[in-house]
């Protein structure tokens, strides 16, 4: 028990700071929040079992992201098509702080919803590349390891995903003369 407690505490100390990263990866792989939370828990459980088996990573973030992605693909795949249960109205209500802020926050919520939809409209590999690099702060080399693909492929997926988001959501980009 004593050894387990030490191991357990060391694991939590090493990994709990990466919870937001795992949560964001999970959020881009399955839609419903309860499934997202299950995926995060299973990721930590699988990571802890590996940790107990003395498989310690050099860097915790890419390791947890890899476990999360693998679990999402192997066990949560069918859940990715289930629609998210949170409605726009709930999002607005949850973030409202004062009457004066209502309009601005409603607009922000609309933009956020559009962004979520646009992310889900991306091909999975582009969505994963953006999640790992732009949301989670991994390098493209680390993302390549997580995705088990060459770095050049990650760069291509990353850029195509970014471009698709920009084209879908943004105003026309400035003319090149505005340099």
């Amino acid at each position, binding site marked *: 028990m004593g050894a387990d407690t030490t191991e357990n505490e060391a694991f939590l100390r090493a990994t709990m700071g990466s919870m937001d990263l795992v949560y964001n990866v999970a959020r881009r792989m399955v839609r419903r929040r309860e499934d997202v939370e299950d995926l995060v828990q299973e990721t930590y459980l699988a990571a802890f079992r590996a940790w107990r088996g003395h498989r310690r990573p050099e860097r915790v973030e890419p390791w947890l992201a890899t476990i999360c992605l693998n679990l999402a693909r192997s066990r949560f795949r069918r859940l990715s098509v289930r629609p998210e249960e949170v409605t726009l109205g709930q999002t607005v209500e949850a973030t409202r702080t004062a009457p004066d802020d209502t309009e601005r926050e409603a607009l922000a919520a609309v933009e956020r919803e559009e962004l979520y939809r646009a992310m889900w409209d991306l091909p999975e590999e582009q969505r994963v590349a953006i999640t790992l690099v732009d*949301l989670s702060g991994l390098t493209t080399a680390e993302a390549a390891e997580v995705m088990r693909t060459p770095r050049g492929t990650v760069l291509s997926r990353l850029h195509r995903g970014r471009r698709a988001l920009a084209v879908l959501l943004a105003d026309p980009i400035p003319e090149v003369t505005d340099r």
Partner: protein
Amino acid sequence: MTRTPQRMRPHDPERNAAEYVSGELPGRTRRWFESHLLDCEDCWREVLLGRLGRRLGGDVRELAPAGLRDRVRTTVEVEAQADPSGDRIRSPWLGRRRRHAGGNGP
């Protein structure tokens, strides 16, 4: 005249823009690319789109719910008490989806 760094050849606006926007071009290559941007319409456009897309992609970042942190901690602590060589104690949280899914969950 600045010579094109070896690692930038062949010219690939998509890849070059992705590396540049991600901040992964090393100093000399980055300086070359920034100079190149002034003359290359394709690269300039890809960099503008890439920057915008990177910002938008980062805008969906969320914090994990506080309750989830507690549940994960509990799950790991329960697992830590299980016999590592034998039957593990199932996390009380991991049964939830199976119950919701009528026993058909993974």
